[in-house]
């Protein structure tokens, strides 16, 4: 509250100082080719230090004492303009001319609270303008950041919960996702619901100064998405965009697997050794592969061994992947359409957009669609003193799936020679199904014919997402504006999964719960009919922000400050229910008895009907207070500072630990504005330095013992609630803090032929929350707490050059990011196996968070093909000892597991109306562990890695292969050693031609009517291929099990 009092006091003083003898001058400043309104322009009364700056809409209002009559309008990169006041003007419409140094365009840093022109921002950020956002074609908005954002990388290895990292990872195990802000508020819905066509720009905030306004949620960086609104003075504009993307078929042979012939030979060998007996004899009647079934028939004398062998030979010719490609896969096709109308009248601006996306997924019968409707309006009222804005954003997403890929053996055959559907096993063995079907003809057909099930399921989910925004701004006095912003968000989703009674899933469940009495009469505990699973989710949030912004000349410079508070409440609930005996036509279902335990038919085990009722609910509460101020001293110096305190309903934290204060300071110095600056080759040079703290909230971690309640009808005492500990107590838990220092240099050459920036940063993560391994005698295996510090050093360099600027313009955009993170503190040791298994993040002091480690590898034993490790410097086959004596220090460390260098180079060529751009990306300085044959899986009859065919078989093979021989029995230690050995580590470095875009604009065609000249047609090809890789392994180092699929998109864009 102190902030407000101070502000109010300042305000009162100002009010008294401004007497009657002034006049109010209002106006707006435009610049650039589109005559866009420019915020942050300095408006100074000539001969005084009194002045103001234009606000985020490019407007200003200034009190000019009667004795002065000239205004000086200046903005970096533009010619300074002096305006003579005649005394009769009510509204000044000022247009600035660009300086010949012609900075590309006016870039602003949108923080979600304010828009700060690049020249006044000290922090580190990247802005993607509309053209760059639209360059790539995708359904998802975040994809458009890839390979064009310095410092931001899409992670292709590691946890799926961390798809994007901004300047490395800032935590060990807590929340690692950047904060996504859409139209000033953190976005609560699924990101898929943002239509990229509605997006005006994206700003990525990277350092403390840029992001600290988001406080405890900014630790992983912030992505600020701003949607389109109409601009002031803009004529009615209609724009239409349509495109279609076609993606090639998946490559099912990409993941290297053994040949089917050697797999069948292996199965024969294992069968003869009795290794399938447990499955064959199991009371669960599990299915076994067709080969095993054939061999078993031979063993039981039903067929001869020769007949079995000929079956095996036949199986060797079959391949289920062929059938899957024939019957299940198709090219994915994504269609995208959008239409928008925007325009303005003097006091009103409006924008309406409709978008429709229709995606046909690569599996037949499955797809999704999205319909979006956006309407926003802005009004200026009371002579421009009051601004009112509203926005309605409605998105309806649908997805439907009617086909699932059949779980099959690799040489199962799905279709006969004439395409007739064939039966394969699923769940149960052929023997059981045929015998029980004979014995109990009352049962429903228990066979599985995959092709008959294509298109059978009716799984749909619908989600509708509504965002209502309202903002009200009132200019109390020219320099002070009060704003209230409110957002209501709600999302309703319904998932309906209907498996009809014909589906295997339903028939199987009904049969399992069929019981026969002594007379052979059947009782079906699950009625015949479909099974319907319904899941309904509702979420809503209210966000409210109150903010005062203050722009005033003070002394020789101008002060820009905002202060306010923000509150948010989010709640979401979901409920799910399963219905049996469902008839979709009549809309009826039949209750079942979920409590009684019935004997399941196939194995006589007791079980209750898998009915499900689920409920969940979450609530998020946040209150934050923030202040952010910057002081611009003439055009040379800029100082900024910000502070924020966040409080939330973190679970199980004492009230006094709920909040965390975070702050930042920064300064900028434009050297090129100094009189002594004479370096003409670089007419623009600026240094920036910022320092501060960001935080990271992790709602899943708690200082208190936390338990989760479970109630299940199938527990031993049905419906007896139980509570399992999910979080053991840790009274010492505290918040993660990330300290960031950023030093940057911005430069621009004459005519802006070369421009760019170089930023160095140092990030120190303090008290990072991570898991440590603890002895299981504690009752848990892992324990979460503040156990680590990290230190990350990096730089982002970006350079844009206009290589040729007339005739055949050629432009190059290049960025190169370097990020080297290092663990500087880790309180505990962890088992060496954790460093090898890449499941979690296990720190090692002095090394990056993600490292690639391996057991020392000494090749193969030439006598028996056994893999050799090293104990005390000697080659050894004592795998148990190798694993047990290993320490984290004794492991071989190959290097970082994530790219240390990455970047891209994008060349854009234009000729007449044609524009061609190609993006080449690179990732360097990292390693990966490849998979190889897993003999434990082999012994379980799995269709395993292609290395099996390359294995050592006889002395001499060690010269041509590094794949160990097959052990005579399962040997878990040998297997673990080999799969974790350093022999399987490869370099990840590669260069990739990511995409090419070709566009043709009709604007240059003089013969065309004006309305058709604003058409742009484009073709975009993505995932084109690797240009170079360091490894000799056959696969793409970043996509080791499935290839990134090539796609091509075509579309048009029409503005009129």
């Amino acid at each position: 509250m102190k902030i407000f009092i101070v502000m109010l006091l300042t305000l009162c003083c100002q009010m008294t100082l401004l007497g009657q003898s002034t006049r109010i001058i209002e106006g707006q400043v435009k610049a650039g080719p589109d005559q866009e309104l420019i915020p942050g322009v300095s408006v100074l009364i000539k001969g005084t230090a009194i002045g103001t700056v234009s606000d985020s809409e490019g407007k200003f209002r200034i009190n000019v004492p009667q004795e002065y009559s000239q205004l000086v309008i200046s903005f970096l990169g533009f010619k300074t303009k002096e305006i003579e006041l005649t005394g009769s003007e009510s509204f000044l419409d000022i247009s600035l001319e660009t300086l010949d140094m012609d900075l590309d365009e006016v870039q602003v840093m949108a923080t979600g609270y304010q828009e700060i022109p690049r020249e006044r921002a000290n922090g580190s950020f990247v802005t993607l303008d509309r053209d760059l956002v639209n360059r790539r074609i995708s359904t998802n908005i975040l994809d458009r950041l890839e390979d064009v954002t310095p410092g931001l990388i899409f992670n292709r290895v590691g946890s799926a919960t961390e798809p994007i990292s901004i300047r490395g990872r800032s935590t060990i195990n807590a929340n690692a996702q950047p904060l996504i802000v859409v139209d000033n508020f953190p976005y609560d819905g699924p990101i898929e619901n943002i239509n990229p066509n509605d997006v005006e720009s994206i700003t990525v905030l990277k350092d403390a100064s840029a992001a600290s306004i988001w406080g405890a949620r900014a630790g992983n960086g912030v992505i600020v998405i701003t949607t389109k609104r109409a601009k002031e003075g803009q004529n009615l504009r209609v724009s239409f965009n349509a495109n279609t993307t076609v993606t090639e078929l998946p490559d099912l042979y990409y993941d290297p697997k053994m040949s089917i012939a050697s797999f069948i030979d292996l199965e024969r060998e294992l069968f003869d050794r009795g290794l399938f007996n447990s499955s064959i004899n199991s009371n669960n009647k599990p299915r076994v592969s067709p080969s095993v079934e054939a061999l078993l028939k031979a063993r039981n004398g039903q067929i001869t061994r020769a007949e079995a062998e000929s079956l095996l030979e036949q199986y060797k010719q079959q391949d289920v992947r062929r059938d899957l490609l024939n019957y299940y896969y198709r090219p994915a096709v994504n269609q995208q359409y959008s239409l928008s109308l925007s325009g303005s009248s003097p006091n009103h601006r409006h924008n309406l957009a409709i978008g429709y996306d229709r995606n046909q997924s690569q599996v037949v019968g499955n797809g999704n669609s999205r319909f979006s409707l956006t309407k926003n309006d802005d009004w200026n009222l009371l002579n421009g003193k009051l601004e009112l804005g509203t926005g309605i954003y409605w998105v309806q997403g649908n997805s439907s799936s009617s086909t699932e890929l059949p779980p099959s053996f690799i040489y199962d055959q799905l279709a006969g020679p004439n395409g007739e559907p064939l039966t394969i096993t699923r769940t149960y063995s052929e023997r059981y199904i045929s015998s029980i079907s004979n014995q109990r003809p009352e049962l429903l057909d228990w066979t599985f014919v995959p092709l008959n099930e294509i298109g059978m399921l009716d799984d749909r989910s619908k989600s509708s997402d509504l965002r209502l925004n309202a903002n009200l701004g009132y200019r109390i006095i020219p320099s002070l504006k009060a704003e209230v912003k409110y957002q209501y968000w709600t999302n309703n989703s319904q998932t309906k999964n209907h498996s009809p009674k014909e589906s295997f899933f339903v028939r199987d469940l009904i049969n399992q719960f069929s019981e026969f009495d002594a007379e052979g009469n059947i009782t079906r505990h699950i009625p015949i009919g479909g099974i319907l699973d319904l899941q309904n989710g509702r979420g809503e949030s209210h966000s409210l922000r109150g903010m005062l912004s203050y722009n005033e000349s003070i002394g020789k410079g101008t002060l820009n400050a905002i202060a306010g508070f923000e509150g948010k409440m989010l709640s979401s609930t979901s409920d799910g229910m399963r219905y049996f005996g469902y008839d979709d036509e009549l809309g009826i279902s039949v209750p079942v008895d979920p409590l009684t335990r019935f004997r399941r038919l196939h194995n006589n085990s007791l079980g209750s009907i898998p009915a499900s009722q689920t409920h969940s609910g979450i609530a998020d509460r946040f209150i934050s207070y923030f202040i952010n101020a910057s002081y611009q001293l003439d055009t040379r110096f800029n100082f900024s500072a910000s502070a924020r305190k966040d409080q939330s309903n973190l679970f199980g934290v004492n009230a006094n630990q709920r909040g965390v204060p975070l702050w930042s300071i920064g300064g900028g110095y434009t050297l090129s504005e100094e009189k002594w600056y004479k370096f003409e080759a670089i007419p623009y040079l600026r240094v920036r330095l910022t320092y501060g703290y960001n935080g990271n909230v992790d709602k899943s971690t708690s200082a208190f013992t936390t338990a989760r309640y479970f109630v299940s009808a199938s527990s031993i005492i049905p419906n007896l609630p139980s509570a399992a500990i999910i979080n053991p107590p840790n009274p010492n838990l505290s918040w993660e803090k990330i300290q960031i220092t950023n030093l940057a240099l911005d430069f621009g050459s004459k005519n802006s032929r070369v421009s760019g920036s170089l930023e160095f940063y140092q990030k120190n993560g303090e008290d990072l929350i991570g898991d440590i391994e603890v002895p299981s005698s504690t009752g848990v295996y892992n324990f979460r707490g503040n156990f680590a510090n990290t230190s990350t050093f990096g730089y982002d360099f970006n350079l844009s050059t206009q290589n040729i600027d007339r005739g055949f313009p050629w432009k190059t955009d290049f960025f190169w990011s370097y990020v080297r993170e290092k663990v500087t503190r880790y309180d505990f040791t962890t088992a060496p196996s954790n460093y090898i298994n890449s499941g979690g993040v296990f720190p090692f002091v002095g090394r990056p968070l993600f490292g690639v480690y391996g057991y020392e590898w000494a090749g193969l034993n030439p006598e028996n093909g056994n893999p050799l490790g090293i104990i005390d410097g000697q080659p050894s086959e004592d795998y148990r000892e190798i694993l047990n004596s290993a320490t984290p220090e004794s492991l071989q460390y190959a290097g970082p597991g994530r790219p240390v260098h990455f970047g891209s180079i994008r060349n854009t060529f234009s000729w007449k109306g044609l524009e061609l751009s190609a993006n080449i990306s690179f990732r360097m300085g990292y390693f990966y562990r490849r998979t190889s044959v897993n003999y434990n899986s082999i012994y379980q009859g799995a269709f395993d890695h292609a290395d099996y065919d390359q294995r050592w078989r006889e002395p001499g093979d060690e010269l041509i292969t590094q794949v160990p021989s097959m052990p005579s029995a399962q040997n878990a230690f040998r297997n673990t050693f080999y799969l974790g050995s350093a022999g399987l580590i490869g370099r990840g470095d590669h260069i990739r031609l990511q995409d090419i875009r070709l566009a043709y604009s009709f604007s240059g065609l003089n013969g065309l009517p004006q309305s058709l000249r604003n058409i742009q047609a484009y073709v975009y090809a993505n995932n084109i291929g690797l240009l170079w890789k360091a490894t000799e392994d056959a696969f793409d180092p970043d996509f080791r099990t499935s290839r990134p699929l090539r796609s091509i998109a075509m579309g048009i864009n029409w503005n009129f």
Partner: protein
Amino acid sequence: MTNIKHTSYLILSFWITVGCNGFLEEKPSKSLVVPESLEDIQALMDVNTNHNVESFVLFLQSDDFDLSENLVNEMNEWQRNATLWKGDIENPSGVTLEFSMYYEKIFYAHLVMELLEEGGFSDQQRVNDLKGQALFYRAFGYFSLAQLYLPPYLSGKDSDEKILPYRTVSQIDLKATLATTAEIYSSIVSDLEQAINLLPEQALYPTRPSRVAALGMLSRVNLAMGDFEEARLNSESALQIKSDLMNYSLLDSADFYPFELLNEEVIFHGVQSSYSLIFSTDLLVSNELYASYDSLDLRKQLYFIPNAEGEPNFRGSYSGGFEFFSGIAVDEILLTAAEANVRTGNITKGMEHLNRLLSSRWKEGLYVERGADNLQEALSLILEERRKSLVFRATRWMDLQRLNQEPEFAKELVREAGEFSGSLDLSKEAYALKVPSRELQLEGID
């Protein structure tokens, strides 16, 4: 100025609304709790999937089944190591579940005792009940660990070798101390004795510990320690509370699983951890044991069912299904009481218990009362029936360990299947599994 006032009113009113009324007290997820109430604490004790489970290794180390070449091929490596008494069931990458599962029970027990301590609850009866449950589970955990990781009590009690990690509080970041065999057993006995005083005679559900369960468990521990007088007292006290027996003649051997879950003999429900091996039709009951059942003995038909080859698979679990029962049931307590009576000199009483049990296991009306002329004869008879009744119950390993301390019951165990073999002479060797190396590394003990 009025505008400013209005604005600040607006801001203030919002601030007041959200600042008070527990705006930040809202629970972030419905199903989460910080356990505080007695109901929450009871729910912590009702995690049956963890607390009522016994290790499968106790069974694998026993002579209840015969190892065939087929079966050995169906086993995981650690199962094979357990079966062949290799002394080590470690998992090369990660946690040894058969070790950690007991400490998880112990952790819950400590947490519950601490919550009860801090809670200041007035309902003393429920507090006692819950504390008793926690003590029971702690004793249960340490007793099973003792059977797996410590030498038999009689051969290990005088050793001051510190072997097993021992904890008395839930605090995670505290290192464990290692305890000797004698220390572990004395802690088990003391916990159970306290639990007996705190628990209600019988529990609402047989999945929860009760006084009768604690007495039963203690009599088991007494046997393992060779303390027959205590075993007699405790088993007799248990039988005072509950001594219902099923009449096996009334059960239908045509049912695949003839016994009901939570049947009237169950004092405390428990099962062994389940692996795919328990479904195998190659898992055959020991041939020698199977042959020893009388043809009028209904246990033979109700416990076993022939597989496709006509060889006997076990199906007589008191879990009513495929899971092997490992809880406490009246039949076991009767057998314990019979043995303890005989060993403390009361042959008549002992034989009385045995005859009561057996008459309920025999075909209706066809049971002929057994008699014994001397202690040795009575004991042999009771031990033989103990083995026959408690087959596949995970108690056999404890019996093998303690009986091998007596020369007349010593038995060398030998297994051979294909290229695999193992043997164990418990009368000469105090066999125990090695504490997993991960544990010792992380405790900082090497």
